[in-house]
């Protein structure tokens, strides 16, 4: 799972759904701790496509 910091709006929706609780929100960045199994849940809820969104919507 790839995190594109320059597409992130720091809303923490991804943090709310990560089953392994490896996404943490600091003031202005998402920190990814080890242990991602690429389940894709964070990708589904990210409003801006900052998490492994293949297509470019911008």
């Amino acid at each position: 799972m790839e995190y594109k910091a320059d597409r992130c709006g720091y809303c923490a929706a991804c943090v709310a759904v990560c089953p392994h609780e490896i996404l943490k929100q600091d003031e202005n960045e998402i920190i990814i701790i080890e242990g991602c199994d690429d389940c894709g849940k964070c990708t589904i809820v990210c409003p801006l496509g900052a998490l492994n969104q293949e297509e470019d919507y911008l």
Partner: protein
Amino acid sequence: MKYDVIVVGGRIGGSVSSLIASQNDLDVLMIEKRQEIGTPVQCAGGTTYSTFKTLDMKPKKKFICSEIKGAMAHAPDGREINIFEYGLMVDNLNIESPSKGYVLDRKIFDKHLAIQSAKAGTDIMVKTTAKDLIIKDGRVCGVVAKHLGKTMEIHADIVIAADGVESNIARLAGLENPKKPKDIGSCAQFELVGLDVDPQWLHFYFGREIAPGGYLWIFPKGEDSANLGLGVRSSKNTAYHYLKKFTANLDATPVELNIGGVPLSGPIGKTFTDGLMVVGDAAGQVDPITGGGIHIVTSCAKIAGEVAAEAIKMEDTSAKTLQRYDVLWRDKFEDGLKTSLKYRRAADKLSDKDMNALAEYLVTNHSEKFSKLGAVKFLGKHPHLLKLIKEFL
């Protein structure tokens, strides 16, 4: 450092609970991880009159963008339904109709609430993040906080977790688990200048091509601008994708982009433990159909502040005492939230065709009273809807 109460999160849930606790002479600290309270905005700002009744506060011009007189729903085929006229909004759910009320400027409103709380005596620390809970012998007794790179322990008899959708504090206390993606509304919104809308009307648009698993809203902010946003639950495209699609041909330009996640799962199972209460989005105190939380969060946060005051005065901040918060807020809202969740699950199964048929039924039966015979005929023509209604009942 030691306080009676530490509130984590400085928006509606945090400011209202800290305000009430401070008004009751408690020693209160509120910490907010952002450097400015109220930003970035993650809200469309629509709320009911009851929010101000709860707060016993006069709505002030500086944060009221417009007063709303009605709302229009737009079916996928473009058919329009005047929500207010049809009384469609869930009056029996103890959830007030969103078709009458205000559109707030959340930036100013949230800051105003924090200022009221500070004036009542609350200490506020901004750019300060709660990283962990201090737990001793199974009871919460403070937070580990970080401010400008410096980590500190701050002790308190009660922690109120008002940290929003990520609900990290409740998780640290073992009260909350990660949510399923279908229980989060993924939202994107523009504040647009140049949209030609009636400043007293809300608009809601439905349809799989517009906002799958959710809806699109237009909330006017006076004469000059409007919040146009949407919430989706879909793995196909992002909320921003649908926002860009809808606004592509509008003759209006954005001056702000807001994003956010709304918890649509209804309330979490338990909102208290020894030394801790959970309020607001963190506790799932949001209507699962509309995604509206302001009026519910305000009321629940007020109860949390009051229960904190009682507990400190009794010198008993155990789960047994704080349970009163859970009982009181559920008494007011739980039935409504649960019914709303049931409606949401039923609505999840509606296709665009079903929604168009429902809209057509409502519009054609507009002048008549909704007759039983008419309803039976309608459902006979739409067996899928009949099946859904049976499931629902």
